[in-house]
């Protein structure tokens, strides 16, 4: 057995272990000793024959140093021996040594977890007591019992939280002090500072105790879960700690049925006296479209999306149904398909403001894609069924009658099926109608591809886009022609 003495700091262990590896020292042949005063550093570490080789960094998997650094914070007799054994095995080509499924790796990960948990306990359960400002720095003082070496992790955390406040945190490991600018450490913790930090109380804690008592729901008493998350060893330093046994016993003694805090229930109450009608919030009267329940699509949609445009527009564009963005905002053609349409309108020389834009189906029908909540989750458009198109036809028909356009452009099969009251788009072939305007119930109807189909097209959709522009340009021409002939009749 060869003793290895070093400072107990991770950085020093790293240097020493590098030399040991270079000299081929097997883990079983070493005993690790921490030498607190830091003298004679490395004196006992066996020197490699070749000094240069000993200083050459050893190649290890990228995440190994961080894993070892974290596990080194775990207080145990064999903390350095375990780390060296793992390092030795990994450098020897056995990478399983650092994995949770391996006996050594399993212990490594168990320790890392315990260290993280202890750092978390420090972040969570430490309580600062406030000192009178006249006493000077530190203004906030805390004592916290830590089972592992996590003081610096906590100190960094509190430096971020506390701004320029001055504070002191004492643990068995040492003292961290923040002077408003910088952190200072002292290890180990002197007895007088411990006594000062542990003994400090202030009278500002009653508010927190009142909050803790009130936010507790006695109807759901569940001490096991509480103890699991907040072990009893922390209670004595928490201002709320002394309240816990009493709150539990009172909850057991009969409050269990009600969630209300006793101190609140004992006070006289008062109703808010207001007539039912006056309490009703002022909302715009829901249009009957909003409350339409002719089919089931409304259930998963945000809102019905009505048409938009001048009440007397002479051209009406009818799409299939609102999409993801349209559903959220309540306006038609504002998503990606709306952008394609805007480009096509510009190319055809039409102004969107002069047109009435609407859809054959007024609610957004969709299904989740990419898992319900994954990062890639989107709402995938689902094609409305013939029955749903039929159920919504009345709303489209109402818009057509009220706006009374001269020309209607049906964008896609669903729009056409609804306008012709065929309702089943499968029975129509878009190609039969494309480029062939026809008269229907006293109006021109033109057919073009839906802008969303252009977006979905495998070939980039250039040909479909041209067809759309042509249909829109043709609509503009027909509208002009009918206007001219109407003017001629009037004239």
């Amino acid at each position: 057995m060869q003793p290895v003495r070093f400072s107990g700091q991770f950085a020093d262990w790293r240097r020493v272990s590098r030399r040991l590896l270079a000299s081929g020292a097997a883990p079983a042949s070493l005993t690790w000793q921490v030498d607190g005063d830091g003298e004679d550093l490395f004196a006992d570490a066996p020197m490699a024959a070749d000094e240069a080789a000993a200083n050459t960094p050893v190649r290890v998997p990228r995440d190994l140093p961080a894993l070892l650094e974290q596990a080194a914070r775990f207080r145990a007799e064999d903390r350095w021996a375990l780390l060296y054994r793992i390092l030795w095995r990994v450098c020897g080509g056995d990478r399983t040594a650092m994995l949770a499924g391996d006996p050594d790796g399993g212990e490594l990960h168990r320790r890392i977890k315990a260290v993280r948990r202890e750092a978390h306990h420090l972040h969570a359960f430490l309580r600062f007591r406030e000192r009178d400002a006249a006493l000077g720095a530190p203004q906030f003082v805390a004592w916290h019992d830590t089972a592992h070496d996590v003081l610096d992790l906590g100190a960094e955390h509190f430096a971020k939280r506390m701004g320029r406040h001055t504070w002191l945190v004492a643990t068995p490991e040492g003292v961290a002090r923040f002077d408003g600018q910088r952190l200072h450490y002292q290890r180990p913790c002197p007895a007088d500072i411990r006594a000062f930090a542990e003994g400090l109380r202030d009278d500002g804690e009653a508010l927190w105790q009142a909050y803790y008592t009130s936010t507790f729901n006695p109807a759901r008493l569940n001490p096991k879960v509480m103890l699991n998350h907040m072990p009893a060893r922390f209670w004595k330093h928490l201002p709320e700690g002394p309240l816990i046994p009493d709150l539990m016993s009172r909850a057991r003694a009969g409050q269990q049925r009600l969630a209300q805090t006793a101190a609140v229930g004992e006070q006289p109450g008062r109703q808010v006296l207001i007539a039912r009608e006056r309490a009703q919030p002022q909302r715009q009267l829901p249009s009957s479209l909003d409350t339409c329940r002719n089919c089931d699509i409304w259930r998963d949609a945000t809102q019905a999306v009505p048409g938009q445009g001048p009440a007397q527009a002479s051209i009406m564009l009818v799409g299939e149904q609102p999409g993801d963005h349209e559903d959220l905002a309540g306006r038609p053609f504002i998503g990606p398909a709306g952008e394609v349409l805007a480009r096509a309108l510009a190319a055809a020389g039409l102004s969107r403001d002069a047109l009435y834009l609407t859809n054959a189906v007024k609610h957004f029908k969709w299904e989740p894609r990419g898992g319900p909540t994954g990062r890639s989750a989107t709402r995938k458009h689902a094609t409305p069924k013939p029955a749903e198109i039929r159920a919504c036809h009345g709303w489209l028909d109402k818009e057509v009658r009220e706006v009374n356009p001269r020309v209607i452009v049906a964008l896609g099969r669903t729009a056409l099926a609804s306008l012709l009251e065929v309702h089943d788009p499968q029975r129509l072939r878009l190609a039969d109608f494309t480029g062939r305007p026809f008269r229907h119930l006293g109006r021109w109807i033109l057919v073009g591809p839906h802008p969303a189909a252009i977006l979905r097209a495998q070939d980039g959709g250039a040909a479909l886009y041209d067809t759309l522009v042509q249909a829109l340009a043709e609509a503009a021409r027909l509208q002009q022609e009918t206007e001219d002939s109407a003017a001629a009749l009037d004239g």
Partner: protein
Amino acid sequence: MQLIDKLTVLADAAKYDVSCASSGAPKRSSKGKAGLGATDGMGICHSFTPDGRCVALLKILLTNFCLYDCQYCVNRRSSDVPRARFTPEEVVRLTLDFYRRNCISGLFLSSGIIRSADYTMEQLVEVARLLREEHEFRGYIHLKTIPDAAPELIAAAGRYADRLSVNIELPSESSLVRLAPEKNVGTIKQAMGAIRLGEEEAQAERRAPSFAPAGQSTQMIVGADATDDRTILHTAQTLYGAYRLKRVYYSAFSPIPQSPASVPFEAPPLLREHRLYQADFLLRGYGFSANELLGEPGNLSLDIDPKLAWALANRAQFPVDLNRAEPRLIARVPGIGVLTAKRLVELRRQRRIRYADLIRLRCSMDKLKPFIVAHDYRPAAAGADSTALRRALRETPAQMALW
């Protein structure tokens, strides 16, 4: 009324909203700066109350005066409870004081509806503005969003808050009409839609001011009406998909003083709420769909967890060979979580996975034994029928009550 008395009333009034998460905020630090507070994306539970719930935020109502008469709510106008109202400055004082003591990571502020939705929302936004602008508070802020509030108020709330939430309250429109006559499912969903659009606008442009960077959540009350778990899970799945919610919280209805006859006198078993959370976790983390977990109308089983229930109903997919199967399938084995599945995949790149590895990874062996194949293990009971397995694996009644 003294501040401490208001705090007693308004914390009691706020505890029925179960969310207390302080996670998901961007990194902010006050190190060496004026002001106070930091966030780093990780939530911290600063305390636990004896009901086992985390205390991460100061969760209070600005006031529990309320015009609405939601039957399940202790603060409804017809309820005979003590009423109180904080000034915005009082909320600020409490938040900063508790924060400096390291009792909390931030504020979760909600309110009864007073005067109008807009007025109420303005008051909530004013508290957040004071904290952020006057006191340079960089801790976590969660604001309840009042449906029906003007879009510009929701936009202002999103600028100051890390998280916004609008409560869906009940899983079906008909229940909402019956039990919360002043609320409207349409305006609730529209508020959620407005928040999602706000988030996406902020994400689209790098220099855009941030908007609720920790996302939005909602709460559904379970057991105040007769809705079954299947409808509840479908509603949750729809909300997750439509509004990119970070979380749906399920709150078992708590009987309240002077309970109206329209709501039950007894609380539903807390185990039902627990099973819903488990199922929700499977939706969010494991790629299960609501239909897979509960294809038929009805409730989740209370005696076994939803993942085990799914596995028992889908025996054809098992046993899963841990040395060959896709990681996604491994995570679907009862007793193996996403993290363990990842660790197994790492391990099998180095060598074959053996039965003892699973013990070392602290898997629940009883649960997973019938469903896996390892290098040195095949389930003896692979042929055992699901009914017998279920009987063997059900949680004992002693564990069923959460008290």
